[in-house]
């Protein structure tokens, strides 16, 4: 009995002593941290995707609390609403950015862009791009080995086995930009997200001369400049045999789509046009349901290319 009592006393005494020590140490070495950081972190999406430029949401939260001017900080996943919420909480002014979405600027499916050789090295676009121009005649377009798909934390990208090209799920895409960085050919671009998934862009990044580009791919941009001439808003520039549509200026008039001789300019999410050469889109009534389903870019629009939609 005496032994037991002695043991209990020693252990409890030791416990109390160490607890006191821990308490004193915790007091002495306490890291003063702004409690707002925790609050801001809670308001962030918690995806830790790195889209903001920080390693994770905690880093972003710290920066948001620390910086006086947070206009250069932006969480692409949470978007404008999340930023507004945080800005209101911190009493600062948030940057306003239009929501964006990733766009794959290549339509070089097996049918459009015949394969000229077989690649059997490591399954990685980065490796293939470091070795050679790719398994088609086009040295600029999508390699199709899925580096972007592997990098997407949100499951918004998937390879279409039929076309061999990645497809973006607009619902899931947060425009964090991971795929843009992963693509060695810089095929993927972040563009303005418009209502109803509307998009008009040049689905080609080939900078070769027209004849060379066309030989490699049926739907290549040949840099003819017709689109730039027809554009009333000055949104289109042609540089290095390649047209580019500035999404900040584009008014979705669709004139360029009709003008493009190769079908390199594509449109998504628009109602079907009348068969006659009518250029003006119909008054924006609600788009028919099937169109909406196809909005996550699968095929080049029917009017542009006569290939039938498969879905």
């Amino acid at each position: 009995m005496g032994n037991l009592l002695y043991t209990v006393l020693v252990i409890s005494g030791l416990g109390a002593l160490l607890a006191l020590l821990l308490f004193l140490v915790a007091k002495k070495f306490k890291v003063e941290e702004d409690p707002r950081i925790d609050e801001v972190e809670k308001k962030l999406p918690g995806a830790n995707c790195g889209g903001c430029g920080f390693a994770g949401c905690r880093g972003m939260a710290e920066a948001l609390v620390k910086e006086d001017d947070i206009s250069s900080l932006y969480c692409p996943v949470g978007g404008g609403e999340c930023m507004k919420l945080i800005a209101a909480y911190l009493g600062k002014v948030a940057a306003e950015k239009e929501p964006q979405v990733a766009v794959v600027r290549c339509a070089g499916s097996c049918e459009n862009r015949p394969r000229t050789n077989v690649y059997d090295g490591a399954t990685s676009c980065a490796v293939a791009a470091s070795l050679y121009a790719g398994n088609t005649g086009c040295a600029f377009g999508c390699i199709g080995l899925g580096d972007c798909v592997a990098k997407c934390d949100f499951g918004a990208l998937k390879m279409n086995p039929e076309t061999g090209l990645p497809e973006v799920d607009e619902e899931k895409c947060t425009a964090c930009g991971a795929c843009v960085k992963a693509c060695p050919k810089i095929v993927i671009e972040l563009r303005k997200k418009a209502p109803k998934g509307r998009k008009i862009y040049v689905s080609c990044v080939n900078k070769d001369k027209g004849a060379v580009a066309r030989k490699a791919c049926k739907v290549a941009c040949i840099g003819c400049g017709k689109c730039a001439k027809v554009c009333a808003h000055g949104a289109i520039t042609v540089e290095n045999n390649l047209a580019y549509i500035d999404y900040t200026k584009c008014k979705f008039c669709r004139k360029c789509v009709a003008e493009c001789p190769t079908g390199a300019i594509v449109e998504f999410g628009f109602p079907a046009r009348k068969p006659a050469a009518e250029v003006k889109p119909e008054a924006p009534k609600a788009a028919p349901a099937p169109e909406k389903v196809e909005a996550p870019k699968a095929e080049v629009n029917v009017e542009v290319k006569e290939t039938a939609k498969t879905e």
Partner: protein
Amino acid sequence: MKTFPIGGIHPSDNKQYSKGAAIERFPLPKVVVIPLAQHIGAPAVACVAKGDKVLAGQVIGTAGGFVSSNIHSSVSGTVTAVDAKADAQGLMKPCVTIAVEGDEWVEGVDLSDTLIKNINLEAKDIVAKVTEMGIVGMGGATFPTHVKLSVPPGKKAECLIINAVECEPYLTADYRVMLEKGEELLVGARILAKAIGVDKIYIGVENNKPDAIAALKKLAATYVEIEVVPLKMRYPQGGEKQLIAAVTGRQVPSGGLPIDVGAVVQNVGTALAVYEAVMKNKPLVERVVTVTGSTLASPKNLLVRVGTPMSELIEYCGGLEGVGKVVAGGPMMGRAVSNIDAPVTKGTSGVLLIPTAESLRQKPDTCIRCAKCVEACPMGLEPYLLSKMSKKEMYDECESHNIADCIECGCCTFSCPAYLPLLDWLRIGKGEVMKRMRARAAAKK
């Protein structure tokens, strides 16, 4: 018999196909496409325009810096285009296209076979001549030779090593040069030795070429400074650092250059080109190319003008029937060709045709940590680890595990029983690490 101390593999050498074929002059093509970047470093700058008449040996591109090289026309004719053309990998590169008319050379070029032995030029004049004539390392790396000959201040060259190893399977171009142009080769080596101010020349030859060793030994008997060193056959003995270790027993330090251990290594083809440039005033416009493969009717060693399309060489030797893959260079370090109409360049040591059955890689499996790659690596690296780090973008770790020392010889991939594409990933990691190292060095300046 000497060899390098660590790693290495024994691929079957397959030199039997083209070994017996004497060097043959390839007929002049109708059109040549001469790339302006045939060397490591800055591309040359075109100094001709469309419509210009050029002579063989005329400068058509001037060096774009110190680490760069002049480009000469390999034929006489009319320039039809100065634009971008697809290279062997399908990437667009600036090129000069010339329609061939006759075969007129610029004045002063000695095209005779007369052997000239007396070296009258001084060291700096030799380097100037080598620079002017656009000589680059012809083993495949195409590093401008004049840069290697300009020994940096504070360093001293002690010996010249002529790389006559040709450890790449299939290739026999250097072997034929040793047999047929042995005299010229030795004079070339002596010119190089004079340029760097050394009086010891080693010629390293692997023992799978006994007749070349015998021939060179006989010729070298008259020169006291030249020693022919037979080496035990092992890949990658032709790697600069491996050859130095094999011949002199010295180890080039990690991140160092051969000159750090007093050695300068030059290839057989380079020595011959230097001989022709200095003694005959002939720029580097043609080279010996081995066209070989088990499917070919008549594998050959051809003396080809730079700019000749590879497809013409293949056609000349028997065509593409049964071929699954075309490789420019040897099977170990050569690069697969996706565009066979691409031209032969200064660095094309061979055109290898691989039959369909052998051309595809095996399906990769899981790494079982058997460490065969570690055993095979001649640089003492751990390829299985580095490739995984590179795949996971752990570039800092790659750097601390000396990925920059990788010589891309392919021993790891060759030896992997799981058929893993180790070198593919190593290259990515090495590229990224080198980029970072350069950025750091630039920031320091």
